[in-house]
């Protein structure tokens, strides 16, 4: 009997080890706080934006799906529209060193300037801690946090899961739609969608 308990305990421990260290906040739940360096070496603390709506965008400049939205200017337009409303936009790069899309601070600055991106800050998360804490799976993967620190949207940037720029025109931009609803004091009508894109290139 004792032997069996030991075996089962052993199994449980194995399961814990084998489980990916992914946490994923549910919609309406309070999100975990994080601190990360931005591309200029400044520390950004999520809690400093309490009271404001915050958008998180997972980024990998090498990913064709990210290129779709930056190459067409769609992501920059969405960023400009959001920050124009006083929304905080944090673009996060969880690519591990050596993986596609990983960038150092100066490289990220060059990228942001080059594509004319308009985030409030571009955060570097080479260890994937923020990414895994939020269960970020794809690039892009979008999250919206309300002023009370609760998750109100997670999922794709829009409803056309392709890498084709031509599909942007007819797509519903979930982020802009949710931000509009939040501003109007309405609940977010589509609070969760399936994100699409390349997998986040975490350190394995």
């Amino acid at each position, binding site marked *: 009997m004792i032997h*069996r308990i030991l*075996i*089962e305990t052993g*199994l449980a421990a194995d*399961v814990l080890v*084998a*489980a*990916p*260290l*992914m946490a*994923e906040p549910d919609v309406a739940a309070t999100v975990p706080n994080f601190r990360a360096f931005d591309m200029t070496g400044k520390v950004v603390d999520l809690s400093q934006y309490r009271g404001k709506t915050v958008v998180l965008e997972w980024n990998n*400049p*090498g*990913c*064709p*799906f990210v*290129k779709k939205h*930056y*190459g067409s*200017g769609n992501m920059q337009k969405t960023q400009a529209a959001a920050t124009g409303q006083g929304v905080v936009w944090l673009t996060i790069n969880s690519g*591990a060193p050596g*993986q*596609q*899309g990983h*960038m150092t601070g100066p*490289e990220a600055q*060059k*990228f942001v300037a*080059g*594509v*004319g991106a308009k985030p409030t800050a571009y955060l570097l998360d080479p260890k*994937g801690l923020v990414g*895994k804490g939020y269960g970020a*799976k*794809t690039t892009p993967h979008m999250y919206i946090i309300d002023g009370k620190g609760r998750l109100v949207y997670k999922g794709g940037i829009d409803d056309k*899961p*392709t*890498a*084709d720029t031509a599909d942007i025109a007819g797509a519903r931009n979930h982020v802009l739609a949710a931000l509009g609803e939040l501003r109007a004091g309405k609940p977010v009508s589509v609070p969760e969608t*399936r*994100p*699409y*894109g*390349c*997998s*986040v*290139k*975490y*350190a*394995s």
Partner: protein
Amino acid sequence: MAAVRFGLMAVLLWLFAGVALAQAPGEQHVDITLVAESEQPAPGSEVTLALASVPQKGWHAYWLNPGDAGLPTRTEWTLPPGATAGEFRYPVPQRLLIAGLMNYVYEGPFAPLVTVKIPAAATGAFPIRLKLNYLVCTDAICVPGKADLSTILQVGDGSVTPARRAQFDAWRAALPRPLGAEGTYQVEGKALRLSIPFPSAAATEGEGYFYPATHGAFDYAAPQKVTRDGDRVVVETGGVKAVGPIEGLLAFGKQGFWIKAVPGTVAGAKAAPAASAPWSAGVLAFLGAVLGGLILNIMPCVFPILSLKALSLAKANAEGGNPRGEALAYTAGVIFVCLALGGILLALRAGGATLGWAFQLQDPRVILVLLLLVTGISFNLAGLFELSAPGFVNRAASKGTGGAFATGALAAFVATPCTGPFMAGALGAALILPWPAALAVFGGLGLGIALPFLLLGFIPPLRRMLPRPGAWMETLRRILSVPMFLTALALAWVLGQQTGVPGMTIGLAAALLATLGLWWTGLRQRRGKALAWLPAALLLVVAVAAAAIVHPEAKASLGSQAFTEARLAELRAQDKPVFAYFTADWCLTCKVNEKAVIETEAVEKAFADHKVGVLIGDWTNGDPVLGRFIEQHNRAGVPLYLWYKPGEAEPRVLPQTLTQAMLRDLAAGG
């Protein structure tokens, strides 16, 4: 200005594209070819098309649900008016866990299949065009791909070339089979327990895994525990997100079953994961093996060695030797050989499993080989020929502790052929039990063989109680050949049940051939010729080769026969009503219908009274010929029950749940 900025942006994007830059634009990382099963599909019929896909090395394409990231393939058809395309059916995918993200992919060649309906009025050229948007990735990068595929078929007689048929049959075999029964699942907190009806008798290979087709049902990367528990499979996993009907693919190795599940109450799996139940079975099997080994000592082929050793032990005792050491060395030798034999068997099992062999007594080939083995043992016991161990073992057995070890090894070695029923039990256990338990069984057998000697070594007075070897042993040996012959007879009967008269005849002929070889060997042994085993070895090879030509006949319980379209046509030509049913070992509904309705006395009597021809199609291994026949009746899988009434062109498709009354009425009316 805007254009300049856009251009600059594009250049920078290319710079940051990193590895992706290395891929020339338009380069494909998966070769996709559109293949039609029939180039001349008949009007009003369906033609199956395949997307024969070959990903480049290091690249993977995605299943219909790609998992945590990736994209399913999107398709856009251009078909002649009136033609319609169905849904793509995907083969069983693979799992690819990259940095905690689960991907459901194909890393090797695969072929999704789809059927296109040809309008009844179609004539002449039938152009098919298919645009694909797909994603193909390596561990590090992803590249979206596009393909514009087209083919022009000619509406005709629906003929299929044999090569094409074989190719499509192989692709069909890789598809999951619809299980035909609904599963239930229960959510407790974040944990999900899914129960899938699955007969306990169905053979499965490899580890079980449930691929959800429904997105958001649960966390893809969460570990799964898949347990077979009686007539069901229980899948337990975590990270549940949403509730609703769940659809997906239950896979065991390359076998796949398509299932749907609805919310319900699901009890936990009774059998603890591969631990407690097999362990208690293992302990029982171990004790049985010890007992079997013990009994083996009085077998004439082992006993002389034992008494020989007992004598040398007495000498050692008298001369102040080390009887305990000798006894332990002997025990070690016996157990070593038994474990080695077990190890070889387990290695064979592992090798066989990778080749897709399932070791089952239901397989007539296994029965035939057992028949040959038992026949050989019987004739050995009857004295037709002798078994002798290699000379070096005999020489090593002569003296000392090393000698004791070798004698033990020799005893076990020599014992192997005459272990008969005991060894067969251990053999069976070795093929079924998990490997540690299987090895324990072989170890137990060895311990049993060594036990008397071990006792003699530690309790010298027992030596006097040992019977003397003599002529009585030869007599005993001859007598023991009788139960062995009876075992052979029983095996021949089983073979006959499985394969009918032709199969049994092949089996008996093979046994005769093997016996002739052994007899010849016995004659050569008596004349002291070299290479005495040559004729036996040759003829045994031929006899074992006969295993290749025995095939299972459908399990006949009511004068039923295996389904073939030719046999069906024959019976219908005789104006007989025909009940054709299609079943599989993994189909619980089928088994329930068979036990409760078809194989009951009342139904069998009604069928016999009205001379109903019964044909059984066994789809357990996904036989493609049966698969096509089943599909022709608008079913994707089993169960399928067809009733052919004389004079009616088309069969009646009976409901999936049969009743005795229904079949009796049909028999009476047909």
